[in-house]
């Protein structure tokens, strides 16, 4: 049963006012904009991953391997800027949020389609400027993606370009968040009360508020650094009478919530996958929904844990450590609800579920090592070491990245109307999972032993860990290329996907694959809670 009309062309074939490439670049269709983000993100992701691989090759042995220190410092800076500002912060919300949020709440588009397209143009401008900063002026910025003052004021490299890029990307993020908030408030299908909304839209909702409220702070902070560099106004540089810790506070007031901008939609994606592949309603709907909002809220007040060793007062350290432990609770609640969703189900271990399970495993390691960093005593040993590098790659890549892989395997048939090869997808999963753990796990041990982060060179006792890590990098890159190949091949000659290949029950599975231009012929009327799978489910609203 499908609600769409098969005679209406799909959004991929739809011919509007503009044809060909212009039909994409000027389209205000949320699905086409979602794909524009997807393609941009794939390109930038492989660029940044390649930079990461170069860093790993340099670190395979102590001393100089393939590059000079200045090159390495530029590489880790650009790797960080692209990965954080261009990929993980916008990634999930911009691709899956754009494509599926309107469909899952029964809308024909977002509230402001033109603003949505404008956000993409801001995004692509900022992203290109970020890459351009590699090649113009006095060489690649070498400050790290955190732009810590005073070094970022003193460095002679193209720091201003990178700051401007991050500033523009911030605006794109704010406008997308605003658009989604209004969409969720105003465009839900008739009968879709708040508590009848699926959990992915709920996660996007929590994310969108964070985007709107936290991003302006980084915007003004980056402008202040630019003002300091250009006009010599002493906000942060002590040589000019400024306060270097003020910068760190302002930076992390945004950049810690930014971690939740990355992870909340990722949690939303796997929350959709577990019920579908278990054929069972999500366990603890309300608990998961409240957890999303709680993470977004408490996440504002933990930024100080990035500065435990920076010279904050004793009580500030106490306070931020306490809150950091509190913010772990909602994440734990989600994990328990996800595994309970699988319990008692009819489980079909297809690639999306495989990635979602890997997500839980990696996210748990990332989460518990986050507690090591949140605890004051252990933080002293692990702060700014390879341990932090391992922790945030487990959260951002193992968490957000693997959830993205889960999501793309889940929704690919819907987005492109084609099925990919399951066997190849499973093999690529194996490479990704093994490669990922080989690449990042050794960094936990290196970090505890004292290996500093952002280091071009290292002492001989750290050699084994770095060597294993570099081997892992090659395996991971191979797995990701295989995954990409699988999707490209499916797009060219995959078999046609049915409207509902996984027997999902949210609205996107009730319209054809790929969806028609306006999603729904007739806007559906919602009469019950989401996630109804069987006649034996007697729950009524």
């Amino acid at each position, binding site marked *: 049963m499908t609600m769409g009309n098969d005679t209406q062309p799909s959004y991929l074939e739809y011919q509007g006012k503009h044809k060909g490439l212009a039909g994409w670049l000027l389209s205000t269709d949320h699905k086409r904009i979602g794909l524009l983000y997807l393609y941009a993100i794939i390109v930038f992701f492989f660029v940044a991953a390649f930079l990461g691989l170069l860093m790993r090759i340099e670190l395979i042995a102590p001393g100089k391997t393939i590059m000079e220190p200045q090159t390495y410092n530029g590489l880790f800076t650009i790797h960080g800027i692209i990965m954080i500002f261009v990929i993980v912060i916008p990634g999930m919300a911009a691709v899956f949020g754009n494509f599926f949020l309107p469909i899952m709440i029964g809308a024909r588009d977002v509230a402001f389609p033109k603003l949505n397209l404008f956000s993409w143009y801001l995004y692509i401008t900022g992203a290109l400027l970020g890459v351009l900063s590699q090649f113009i002026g006095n060489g690649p910025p070498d400050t790290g993606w955190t732009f810590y003052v005073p070094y970022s004021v003193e460095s002679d490299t193209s720091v201003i370009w990178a700051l401007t890029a991050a500033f523009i990307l911030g605006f794109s993020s704010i406008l997308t968040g605003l658009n989604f908030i209004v969409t969720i408030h105003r465009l839900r299908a008739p009968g879709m009360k708040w508590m009848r909304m699926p959990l992915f839209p709920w996660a996007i909702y929590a994310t969108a508020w964070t985007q709107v409220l936290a991003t302006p702070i980084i915007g003004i902070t980056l402008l202040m650094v630019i003002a300091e560099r250009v006009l010599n106004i002493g906000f942060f540089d002590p040589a000019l009478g400024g306060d270097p810790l003020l910068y760190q506070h302002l930076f992390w007031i945004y950049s810690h919530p930014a971690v939740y901008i990355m992870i909340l939609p990722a949690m939303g994606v796997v929350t959709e996958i577990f019920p579908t592949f278990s054929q069972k309603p999500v366990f603890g709907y309300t608990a998961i929904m409240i957890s999303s909002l709680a993470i977004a809220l408490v996440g504002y007040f933990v930024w100080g844990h990035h500065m435990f060793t920076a010279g904050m007062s004793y009580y500030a350290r106490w306070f931020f450590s306490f809150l950091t432990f509190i913010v772990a609770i909602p994440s734990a609640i989600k994990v328990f609800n996800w595994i309970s969703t699988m319990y008692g189900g009819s489980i079909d271990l297809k690639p999306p579920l495989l990635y979602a399970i890997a997500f839980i495993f990696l996210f748990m390691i990332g989460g518990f090592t986050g507690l090591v960093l949140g605890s004051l005593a*252990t933080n002293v040993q692990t702060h700014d070491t390879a341990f932090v590098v391992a922790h945030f790659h487990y959260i951002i890549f193992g968490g957000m990245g693997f959830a993205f892989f889960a999501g793309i395997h889940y929704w690919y048939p819907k987005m492109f109307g084609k099925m990919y090869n399951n066997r190849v997808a499973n093999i690529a999963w194996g490479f990704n999972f093994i490669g990922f753990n080989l690449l990042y796990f050794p960094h936990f041990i290196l970090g505890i032993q004292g290996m500093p982060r952002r280091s071009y060179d290292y002492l001989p006792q750290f050699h084994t860990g770095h060597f294993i890590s570099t081997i892992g990098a090659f395996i991971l890159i191979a797995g990701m290329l295989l995954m990409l190949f699988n999707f490209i091949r499916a797009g060219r000659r995959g078999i046609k996907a049915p409207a509902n290949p996984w027997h999902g029950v949210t609205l996107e599975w009730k319209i054809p694959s790929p969806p028609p231009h306006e999603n729904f012929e007739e806007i559906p009327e919602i009469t019950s809670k989401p996630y109804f799978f069987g006649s*034996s489910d007697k729950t009524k609203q």
Partner: protein
Amino acid sequence: MFTGASNLAEGVDKAFLFIFIIAFIFIIGITVFMIWTVIHFSRKKGKEAKQFRGSMKLEVLWTGIPLILVMLMFWIGWKGFAPMRKVPADAMVVKAIGRMWEWEFVYSDSLRSKELVLPINKPVKLDLVAEDVNHSLFIPAFRVKEDVVPGYDNWLWFTPNYIGNYEILCTEYCGLLHSAMVSQTRIVEQDEYDKWFEELKAASFVPEPDGLKLLRSTGCLACHSLDGSKLVGPSFAGFYGSQRTVTAGGAQKTVTADDAYIKRSIYEPNEEVVEGYARNLMQSYRTLLTEEQIGIITEYLKTLVKNEGTQGAGL
């Protein structure tokens, strides 16, 4: 494992152990449960999925237990950390200076040393001073770390428990040679320390030329050696009066390293770059060195003949 190289190690290692044990139990437990669930409830077995939606009892249970556990972790972490902020009144004070890209330790009577030599079993407080950008002083074996931030009076303290050499690392990224900002702390018996201190005192009474002092305090020696070895920039050994092949405005030319050249190189370091070295690594020192000071440096450079240029350098 609870007797570390410093008095603070025990508290830190206890917190590590506690968090790791709980993490291990949960990660293994949940992973095994997931694998068992996927196998036991596999669709291939043809059983119908049970349609239930939640349990208030379970939600309370798995909110409450983790809450208790993380509060315990917080408490143990705080217990291990609290003594780090309570420095004993009789602690010996050493000033630790972080600059791009070296550590320097200033003892009483302004005696300076590149390595941190300390007597065993005696509390020491390091006052952390940054001369340029942020650094972070980290001694992994002692479980101590604190950022070295310009304008901030940060400090840390510890009591070393064992004789030995331990690495001092920089963990706050500070530019080009951040990874090479490594020193060591040497923990010795009290009488050996006294002897070392006397030697330090004696050595520092050999007067240093003013030019060398300037080079040292301006941070030039981090990149330019005095003994002919190649660092980030060219060595100063045998430098004065030599013929330099430089790239200026894209073209190569040869110039003589005379007084004017030295001044140009300090004020406009990127106009003429010596062959084999990269542009833009050095910034102009126009605001940091007067022409008079450059004159003093030039006089000192004249005294540096190749391979004999290390006197008094103490590197």
